[in-house]
């Protein structure tokens, strides 16, 4: 228990041997088998991609300031929105929480020394890099203008779709395998590396959501792989499966594609929900409410996610009966999501809520996710979806869910675990300012898009009719996007600043009870000298604030966690 003890006794003095200083040199990073370093490399890569995708988003928004389009021609615009979508989905949101934060946090939270297959973990990171390079290759082989969905027959029409389709498909295929290997690693880690006392229902809820996510990653991604392989072969050789000119069926492609890509939506949002469950509990200093309902709702969402893909295709020409059935099943996803929101609120009830940056992101998530989830009702309802499908209403809805929820949870998670990952505290003041900008900017950007959509503005338009009354909403949205960008730049600024001049982080700055807060900040190379023992990870009453430490420590009058292992 030396590690756990260290957190009690040593002040926030520099930790001499941690995973950052354990070995040195570039190679010790590039070929590391340490899950923490791999997680950190993922984090840097994902944030780099997020920067690129964000630049694309700003270009898109700037273009739409005027009806005729401000800065680009049609081809450029189509390429920019395609890259924005493809980068954000495949390179940012899907790997963001599982591969970056999950890799870092999961084994420590679980009480393991590493993930089950460290070499596979490193391999998955390198696959990710190769996949990302394929996207760069796509830019140099003619660009990509198919939209991130690669809908047929446009994407197989070599005469009109740009030449980067096959490199991009290769990239997504490879990224898919990176995602599969991460998911496999997590499933096996959670199954086989839980230390004594860490029963399934003692796991922090973040682990439940990562587990549900990993299951989806393993089961859905191979189907995407083979779909894209079929698409690439169709484009290259003309096999006649998706090409109507050869007796193929373009709607079949949509079925194949959404069979993966709808579960993928939950690959994006489920880990976010997991982070929020932990953020709300830790920063409210209050035992999570309805643990098992939240845990099971994650599993329920994972199961339902495989049964609702057809709701992307209500106007695609699939049969009316199928459409009605998919609409019905789609509503079933609404229930577990609602259950989670209610449980988070109940957790805050009678809590001791810190208004610090991670908690602000947590509360922002509840606000944004409620809007995102409720507007899903408009789209699941058949009568209204016909009007709203493929308009900005859909764009606004999935940005509320994928960006406003998944990505906000990611940013919140970064703030939550930043002291643990880097050993430094960031500026709380700037954190709150940046959150305010992000929150206002986000809602301004995307709430106006709900109006645009329900008023009839179709998506993926580089220009729009002048007299339709869209311009005001576009201007509001674009202004919002600039505020949002400013918020993110400030965030990047103070986080980087904290690496240089930040206060040293205590082992437990927030008062978390899960195992990662029991090892030093940053954690040592092996996480735990020996497998730690586990209590109720949401019982915060055993902690007290220590002024010298500037963090939380165990109350002297409660028994040591080692002693309560099997109570």
């Amino acid at each position, binding site marked *: 228990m030396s590690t756990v003890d260290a957190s009690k006794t040593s002040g926030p003095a520099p930790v001499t041997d941690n995973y950052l200083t354990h070995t040195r040199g570039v190679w010790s990073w590039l070929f590391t088998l340490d899950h923490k370093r791999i997680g950190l490399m993922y984090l840097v890569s994902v944030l780099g991609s997020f920067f690129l995708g964000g630049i694309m988003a700003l270009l898109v928004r700037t273009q739409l300031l005027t009806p005729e389009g401000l800065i680009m021609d049609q081809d450029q615009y189509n390429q920019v929105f395609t890259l924005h979508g493809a980068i954000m989905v495949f390179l940012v949101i899907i790997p963001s929480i599982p591969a970056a934060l999950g890799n870092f946090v999961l084994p420590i939270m679980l009480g393991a020394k590493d993930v089950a297959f460290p070499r596979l973990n490193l391999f998955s990171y390198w696959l990710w890099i190769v996949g990302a390079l394929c996207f760069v290759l796509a830019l140099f082989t003619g660009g990509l203008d198919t939209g991130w969905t690669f809908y047929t027959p446009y994407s197989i029409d070599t005469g009109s779709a740009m030449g980067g389709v096959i490199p991009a498909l290769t990239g997504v295929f490879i990224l898919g395998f990176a995602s599969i290997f991460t998911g496999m690693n997590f499933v096996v880690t959670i199954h086989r590396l839980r230390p004594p006392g860490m029963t399934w229902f003692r796991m922090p809820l973040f682990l439940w959501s990562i587990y549900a996510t990993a299951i989806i990653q393993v089961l859905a991604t191979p189907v995407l792989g083979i779909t894209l392989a079929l698409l690439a072969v169709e484009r290259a050789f003309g096999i006649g499966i998706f090409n*109507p000119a050869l007796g193929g069926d373009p709607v079949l492609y949509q079925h194949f594609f959404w069979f993966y890509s709808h579960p993928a939506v939950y690959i994006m949002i489920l880990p976010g929900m997991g982070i929020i469950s932990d953020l709300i509990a830790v920063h409210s200093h209050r035992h999570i409410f309805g643990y098992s309902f939240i845990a099971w709702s994650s599993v329920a969402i994972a199961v339902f996610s495989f049964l609702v893909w057809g709701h992307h295709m209500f*106007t695609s020409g699939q049969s009316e009966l199928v459409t009605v059935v998919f609409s019905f099943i789609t509503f079933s996803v609404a229930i577990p999501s609602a259950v989670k929101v209610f449980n988070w609120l109940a957790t805050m009830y009678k809590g001791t809520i810190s208004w610090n940056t991670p908690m602000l992101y947590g*509360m922002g998530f509840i606000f944004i996710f409620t809007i995102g989830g*409720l507007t899903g009702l408009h789209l699941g309802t058949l*009568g209204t979806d*016909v*009007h709203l499908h*493929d308009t900005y209403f859909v764009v606004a809805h999935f940005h509320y869910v994928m960006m406003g929820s998944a990505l906000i949870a990611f940013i919140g998670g970064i703030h939550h675990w930043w002291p643990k990952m880097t050993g430094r505290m960031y500026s709380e003041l700037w954190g709150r300012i940046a959150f305010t900008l992000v929150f206002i900017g986000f809602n301004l950007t995307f709430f106006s898009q709900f109006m645009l959509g329900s*008023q009839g503005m179709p998506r993926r338009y580089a220009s729009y009719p002048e007299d339709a009354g869209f311009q005001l909403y576009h201007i509001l949205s674009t202004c919002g996007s600039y505020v949002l960008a400013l918020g993110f730049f400030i965030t990047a600024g103070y986080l980087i600043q904290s690496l240089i001049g930040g206060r040293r982080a205590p082992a437990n700055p927030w008062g978390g009870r899960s195992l990662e807060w029991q090892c030093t900040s940053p954690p040592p190379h092996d996480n735990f000298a020996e497998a730690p023992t586990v209590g109720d990870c949401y019982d915060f009453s055993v*902690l007290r604030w220590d002024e010298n430490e500037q963090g939380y420590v165990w109350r002297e009058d409660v028994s040591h966690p080692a002693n309560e292992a099997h109570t």
Partner: protein
Amino acid sequence: MMSLLTMIGAAAPSKEATFWMPESASTVAPMVDGLMDFINIVCYIFFALVVAALFYFAIKYRQREGDYTFDSDGPTHNMALEITWTGIPTIIVIVMFWLGMQTYMDLRTAPANSYDVNVTAQKWSWTFQHPEFAVTEANELTVPANRPVRLIMASQDVLHSLYVPAFRVKQDVVPGRYTSLWFEATEPGTYQLYCAEYCGKDHSLMLATVHVLPWDEYQTKMGKLAREYEDIPDSQLPAYAINRLYNRCASCHSLDGSSGTGPSFKGLWDRTVNGTTEFTNGQSVGDLSGPGGEYELAENYIRSSIVQPQRHVVQGFTGAMPSFQGQLKERQIDALVLMMKHLDQVVDADGNIIESPNLGGDDAAEPEQEGASE
């Protein structure tokens, strides 16, 4: 349950745009709007509850200075509460599903006496054919008011989607099969039609206008459109072509010499007559225009590129053009050929269409332009 909808939405039918919805001009629009209002109200209530609780708890239970005693006694679960907040949303979404399904069925089931219009979508224009009147319109759809209209749609190339926000209808147009939608316009007027499924470069320019006319006016207009090119004197055909037919070419063929998806019309006739146009197979018009050649008559090249565009694709282009065989009447093809020949008379040097060209014909006034400017 439908009475609930009627109560909320249809009871106060609104023709004007509201905060959420655009102007409504079809029989299904009030139903959709009523459904939208119902969902909105549910959403407002839930959103208000969640956000009120969020702010109330966040403020009331905020951590005060020096408050580090954490209550471990509060409730951590409550089965009755969990079942309540699982059950109530379940009931609400089932009601929502049911209402949505009913509206959807109305949206999808065309009445038996529908008036059919055939729609062809191609990158990046819409063609509407009225079989009853043998009239073809491009990027303009004229329909009668207060009569169910069914669109039977086919795509010549990629996916498109026909979307008229004012009618609350949308349906993808899929190559290799027919899809359909129907609506009954209630208000005469002009409405915007969009392509809602991404279809490539000029997706955002693939727009059309829907004109809703009372039945008698509609019949008059159709009759006029059906005869328009027959009645026009040959001297006026170029003007007719540039005003009434060119909008189907405009997305790919410019008039100012700039290359689009296809070659510009500017100077096309000269290139054809001189035989300088080169094809992707290495031949040129000149190779085929000698005595006995396929294009001995230069007019035949123009005609061939309209009805068999893939036969000879001009060097530097991808051959993306669909065939207009059967979509254009003989006299319309004549008009296009004449337009190519006399392009400088109907288009100025900058590529703008001249409003009243001097074509040397007797009747300078052009009745057909009236229809175009609508």
